[in-house]
């Protein structure tokens, strides 16, 4: 589904991401882990178009999307969430999702100014879809609450709902569990599983190791911008390079 060849990003002399090859297969849940500063978020930014790669190639469903703009890539079906809170704070929860249903069912903009019958029907379809998304993520009861008044965990969930509104085929989740308490973590993990059941391919960055090991069948490990390991959770746990990267012991030398 997503193929990445020799992807690199240099900031001056710093190799934030350095010749990474990776493949995401349709319908899988892939975990991307690594110590702080390993280049995970930079990697997401390169795939989603927020940053332009220095070198390398990103292919999605056979189409070269290297260096395209983020909205173009989102339109092709790769949607990312952000680390930390990223919502439209001045809108209600429902409005956040309604606004994000931008790509489908494509409302002609000048139609909406003129309020033609067709545009109204489409607006209603968007509203129905937005409510369905809120049902799915469990924010339906908070639909009319102001987004900035939500609790931290709910804001993070709303961030996922916003991404879902863009109809992703591949969903890039950047630390979806960050700052959540234990019950929120298990709810969010269940949500990610539900999304996967609906056929959305998941690529997950997460620091919560136990959650990643439970959720993903395959894991890729980055360290200092390079891919150092790839395999099943059990293989990763036993990999000496990964252990060295996480526990320090002379990792720079290796």
């Amino acid at each position, binding site marked *: 589904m997503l193929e990445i060849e020799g992807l690199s990003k240099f900031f001056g002399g710093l190799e934030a991401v350095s010749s990474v090859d990776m493949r995401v297969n349709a319908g899988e849940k892939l975990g991307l882990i690594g110590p702080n500063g390993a280049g995970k978020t930079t990697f997401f930014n390169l795939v989603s178009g*927020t940053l332009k790669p220095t070198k390398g190639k990103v292919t999605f469903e056979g189409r070269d999307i290297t260096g395209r703009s983020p*909205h173009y890539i989102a339109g092709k079906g790769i949607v990312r969430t952000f680390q930390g809170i990223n*919502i*439209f704070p001045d809108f209600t929860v429902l409005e956040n999702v309604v606004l994000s249903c931008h790509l489908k069912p494509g409302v002609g*903009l000048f139609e909406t*100014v003129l309020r033609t019958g067709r545009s109204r029907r489409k607006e209603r379809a968007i509203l129905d879809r937005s409510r369905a998304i809120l049902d799915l993520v469990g924010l339906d009861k908070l639909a009319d609450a102001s987004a900035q008044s939500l609790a931290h965990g709910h804001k993070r969930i709303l961030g996922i709902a916003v*991404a879902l509104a863009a109809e992703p085929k591949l969903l890039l989740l950047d630390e979806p569990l960050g700052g959540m308490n234990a019950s929120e973590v298990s709810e969010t993990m269940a949500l990610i599983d539900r999304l996967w059941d609906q056929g959305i391919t998941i690529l997950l960055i997460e620091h919560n190791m136990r959650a990643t090991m439970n959720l993903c069948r395959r894991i890729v490990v980055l360290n200092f911008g390079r891919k150092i390991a790839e395999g099943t959770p059990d293989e990763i746990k036993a990999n000496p390079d990964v252990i060295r990267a996480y526990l320090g012991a002379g990792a720079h030398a290796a």
Partner: protein
Amino acid sequence: MKRSLVGATIVCLIFLPVFLSGPYYTHVFILTMVNIVLAASLRLINLSGQMSLAHGGMMTIGAYTSALLVMKAGLSFWAAMPISGLATALVAYIIGYPFVRLKGIYFSIVTIFFSEVVVLTAQQWQSLTQGAAGIFGIPRPDPVSLFGILHADFSSKVDFYYLALVLMLLCLLILYAVEKSRIGMILRGVQQADSLAESVGIDTTGFKVLAFSVGSFFPGVLGAFYSHYISAINPDAFAFLFTIYILIYMTVGGDGRFLGPILGAAVLTILPEVSRPLKAFEPFVFAAVLIAVIFFVPEGMVGLPKMLKRAKPSSKEGAAHA
């Protein structure tokens, strides 16, 4: 309630010229309506999180385009006015793409430079614009008659008053429809979190340019109206201070609501005319009003009722505690 209030205001405006004593006050109300459209259209650009200071420049472009189309190309004013608006929007669209790459104050700065370039072009392109002296004797609009009953030959200011009224209502209607549509929602989304908007597939650059371009259409049209109304245009008629005034109308009225710039422009245009000393020190008065509003009523005049409501219960509470 809201609708009937709008209706009542329009009816008042239709009968107002009957009560205005003399052409001077008619002129003041024409200016007021022009300023209202300028401030309301500036808000549309502002909605996308960009502060344009090119409104004066855009108005100059509209004014010259229309004057030249009528005087050199022999077009009717009724064709030249919308064409001027479209031409201005096109200019904004073209410069929009490089400009919106800059964010915040940097965007505002290039829009100031752009306005200066417009002024300099009008001054230097002597063969076309007659240079710094400007163009004089711009003809009045061709006479029109509606339903064979209402005739307007634009020999008196009252005819221009009604033209300005129709223009203002049309422009406000369009601006309102755009703001309440999905476009308005997207623009506010872009203002709040543009990388998030981009990540769900919204072409944020495109929408910023759209706001800048549509928002510049209106000063283009009003520039055309104004040059034919005054019958003259010179390069620095709508200079930097003019643009700053529009910004002040919007901010003092309150840029958070559609009504804000309308209210701000109306009060600040009419008020200095009521008292001469106020008029003489206009820039000082405006600056003082602006500072006072920013400090005490950050939401602007439209935020006043809400503030008063909030102040009341708290004073009752205070009394109860005492």
